[in-house]
């Protein structure tokens, strides 16, 4: 088993338009999906949700305000899962609720520190 980082990207405008009640509705599929991964003992770290605002620090000392990539592809959060292969990790990502709202999941194997 290896650890894989799942990075969630979605349109940052989407989150900001949600009412608290809609937020509640969004929460259930996430809890169910992560609960399902955890039930398979494949959730290594429940990660975090990220705020929309951010800053980027560049090598010349310039700090710019985020979002620093396309607003439609803003980083929304991450978790770490356990899987036998990159293929399995990608397969497990298919259930991610971010896909239902036009977002995507980037799957990257974590290389253990030597």
């Amino acid at each position, binding site marked *: 088993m290896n650890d894989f980082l799942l990075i969630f990207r979605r349109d940052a405008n989407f989150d900001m338009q949600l009412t608290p009640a809609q937020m509640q509705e969004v929460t259930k599929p996430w809890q169910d999906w992560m*609960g399902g991964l955890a*039930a398979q003992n494949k959730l290594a770290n429940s990660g975090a949700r990220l705020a929309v605002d951010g800053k980027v620090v560049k090598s010349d000392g310039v700090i710019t305000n985020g979002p620093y990539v396309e607003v439609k592809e803003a980083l929304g959060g991450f978790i770490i899962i356990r899987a036998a292969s990159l293929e399995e990790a990608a397969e497990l990502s298919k259930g991610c609720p971010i896909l239902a709202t036009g977002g995507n999941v980037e799957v990257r194997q974590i290389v253990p520190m030597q």
Partner: protein
Amino acid sequence: MQNDQLLPNLYRTEYRKIVAVLARLFGFEHIQIAEDIAGDTFLLATETWAKKLPENPAAWLYIVAKNKAKDHLKHNAIFTQRVSPAIQHESSQVNELEIDLSEENINDSQLQMMFAICQPVIPAEAQIGLALRILCGFGIDEIADAFLSNKETINKRLFRAKEKLREEQVKIEFPDANEINKRLETVLLTLYLLFNEGYYSSGGNINLRRDLCLEAMRLNHLLVTNKATDLPAVNALFALMCFHASRFDARIDKDGEIIIYDEQDTALWNEELISRGTNYLIRSSRGEQLSRYHIEAAIAFWHTKKEDSAEKWENILQLYNKLLILEYSPMAALNRTYALGKADGKEKAIVEAEKLTQLADNHLYHSLLGYLYTGIDKATALRHLQLAFKLAKNKEEKNRIAKNIKALDK
């Protein structure tokens, strides 16, 4: 009270008090002496009470134990030399030695003993065994029964555990305030396992198993009523135990077999324990800390609701999600999937259940799949139930599965 029951009952309630107080006085390294003195006291009671019962039997035991302790200090020079420095600040002379068997000192001694025994350096089952012996006054034969083991194994286990604690120079004392949360984690886990040992293990003596649960509750209650240990997780665990205990009478039939939750007579659920549990659950919600006991107590709270509502099962499902995200366990994975079936329908639960391949050799997993496929795909349901029957380890469980196989044809 019948005379022949008097001594066993006093043994259960007083032995542990005498041991805790004396061991605290002598130090953990001399716990064997404390146990021997308490044991000798009861032996003398057995011999003399048959002729004449003392007016106040408990007080008699205390006086005899105190005198035996003083005799021991007087006549055992080596012991006195080694222990005396420790005791000297309490009393300059052995003769004046005050052995304090007041309720307050007994409670303090028992609490400190709890911290002394619950140490990660010894295995959990040894912690539970020691707790049963020293804190609950169970006999070795009773502990052997509770673990479905034999006296020799238990004796060895307890001996090794005490040796280990001696090597580690464990002290019978309250942990520092800044350490208490960390130390309580081990204590709470031991109490949780002690309760579960009584609640979930099948086979053996039902009354004894219920006693394990009641002892876990008594010790947990000691923690709840002490200011220093009255912390959110301690209250949450006590709430959990109250909720589970509320179903004691409903979950066991007249033949001693477990009645599953769905088939229980809810009129037998104990309302008083449910409301006590609710109070402690409310008390547990102070502060920021959310322990697994909080989540499990909240799950148990929803299980005390008699009506099968969508709200109930959706809440239970989300709590199991939370519990699993915090910490994986096979039971939580199975229960979560059952709750999913109740909340979102069996079809959805089957999809999720089929993913739990890590549980393929667990009979409860196939029982769950058998249940989920019942009413949807009879052949598959039967296949899983038969596999569950094959994998089940004891008679009680096989009986229950056989009943479910029979019910498929109805």
